[in-house]
């Protein structure tokens, strides 16, 4: 910073002191501008450098984007499975089979008392006639049913309990109470498989998380390794820059931007891969979901999720480059 423009040997006392004082305030802004210019230059130059070796860049991007999109795909699958599970809440209804000899009025009054309970959300009555009609239409038993003289089906109350926080813990108390009701023949409650499904979903969620961490680490290492070899290839340039007085930040900057570009581009490729997978699976999945009727539709990546993936990718790329430069750039003795 001790720079002299036109030294005057005859007047040595005036060479250094006067210039800095008036220049200091005016200098600040050009400095900031120079800093910004260097950033934008590094930004562009690092992209050009990637474009200069398209093969190597494409390989790095592909590995990185695969590592990024795998956990996301698993997570997406999980998300859809959860939604499916949500629709299966219907199955939580408690099937209460009343004794066959009970008449419709008793069944109705029983339903009304149940409706008044605090832990009951809804009670639906299925009369024997309705049951028979449904049986006939659905199961192709029409011929067999014709043989029957009377209607053997009982009245069924479908009780949907209010979902409480600890719903997964076990059967609600009402199940037990209904089982002991004198009017009730049998209580059917499919809690167990529901609990199993929840456990499977929780396990898959954890699996997706662990995979995301591992594969994120892989993406980090891919970028780190690429930047490391980049640094090795530009050793002379780095060494010259250091001799010319470049500080750590200046030398590191282009590599950090390289990492940033890798992250951004790999994020885009990963998004494309995910969209591709969605398109490839759309046909068979459509057939599968249509069997669930209108109530269930598969959903893909939302905008927010896509942005999150993109952002995570950029951060990983930058971080990988940062780690590589911290490890590789020696600031001791340039050649």
């Amino acid at each position, binding site marked *: *910073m*001790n*720079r*002299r*423009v*036109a*030294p*005057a*040997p*005859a007047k*040595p006392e005036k060479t250094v002191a006067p210039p800095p004082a008036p220049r200091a305030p005016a200098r600040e802004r*050009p*400095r900031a*501008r*120079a*800093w910004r*210019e*260097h950033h934008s*230059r590094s930004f562009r130059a690092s992209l050009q450098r990637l474009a200069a070796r398209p093969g190597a860049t494409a390989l790095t991007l592909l590995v990185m984007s695969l590592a990024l999109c795998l956990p996301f795909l698993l997570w997406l699958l999980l998300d859809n499975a959860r939604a499916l599970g949500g629709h299966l809440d219907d199955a939580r209804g408690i099937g209460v089979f009343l004794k066959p000899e009970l008449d419709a009025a008793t069944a109705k009054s029983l339903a009304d008392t149940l409706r008044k309970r605090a832990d009951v959300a809804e009670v639906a009555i299925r009369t024997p006639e309705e049951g028979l009609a449904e049986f006939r239409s659905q199961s192709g038993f029409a011929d067999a049913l014709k043989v029957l003289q009377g209607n053997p089906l009982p009245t069924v109350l479908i009780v949907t309990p209010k979902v409480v926080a600890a719903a997964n813990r076990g059967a609600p108390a009402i199940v037990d109470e209904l089982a002991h009701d004198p009017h009730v023949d049998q209580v059917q409650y499919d809690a167990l498989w529901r609990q199993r499904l929840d456990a499977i979903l929780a396990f898959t969620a954890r699996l997706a998380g662990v995979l995301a961490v591992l594969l994120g680490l892989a993406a980090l290492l891919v970028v780190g390794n690429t930047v490391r070899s980049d640094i090795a290839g530009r050793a*002379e*340039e780095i060494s*010259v*820059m*250091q*001799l*010319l*007085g*470049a*500080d750590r930040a*200046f030398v590191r900057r282009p590599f950090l931007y390289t990492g940033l570009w890798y992250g951004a581009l790999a994020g885009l490729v990963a998004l494309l891969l995910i969209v591709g997978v969605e398109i490839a699976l759309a046909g068979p999945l459509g057939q599968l979901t249509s069997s669930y009727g209108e109530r269930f539709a598969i959903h893909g990546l939302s905008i927010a999720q896509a942005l999150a993936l993109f952002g995570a990718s950029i951060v990983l790329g930058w971080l990988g480059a940062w780690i590589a430069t911290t490890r590789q750039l020696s*600031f001791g*003795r*340039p050649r």
Partner: protein
Amino acid sequence: MAFVAGHSGAGKSTLLRLVALMDRPTRGQITVNDQNLAKTKARHVPRVRRSVGMVFQDHRLLMDRSVFANVALPLEIAGCTREEIGKRVRAALDKVGLLAREASPPVTLSAGEQQRVGIARAIVGKPPVLIADEPTGNLDPMLSAEIMNLFAEFGQVGTTVLVASHDLNLIKRMGKRVLVLDHGKLIDDFRPQTDNVVARSATITPPPLRSGGGQEVGAKQDAGRSSLPSRPEGTSA
């Protein structure tokens, strides 16, 4: 301006590397611009290097960049704006007579031209100290004289110029102060003819680079002095 002469391994390069903080002294002190380099912290090394222009024997230009970009590098590092860089790079290239080649890649230039680009890069930041390690090592005598005259010009406008060379004939013709090293010790300090030494602001203080209490590598260059001072600074480590 002063020359550092001596055989290979005499310590010429070491001396210049110490001034540029490429190496650190194990003993003794080096003062450049009133700054004790031995006490310079690692994070201030870049700043010190920016105040020293360096010319290398193999010029060390970046071959994948144009002449302009090579010369612009020190200014980019120093944090100059684009307009300022443009102006100063052209001024520096003009000074070494290569303004017309600013867009060329260095490989298309001759050895002498490449070395002149190296010099332009060293002086573009207007450093108070300019050091050159065998800048004419790869050049023929005529080109060498041309390059040396260029250095002498910078010495004349107030830059401290320190050139290491083993080409004694050339050095003698230049008529500047010559420091002769041998095995890390100053064995001679003379001036072939009288000349105005404008060099200043670089002080190299003993003790010697090598051990032993023999003659010391020490030279203080005073502003505007035409004498040949060989007085070591009082500060011995």
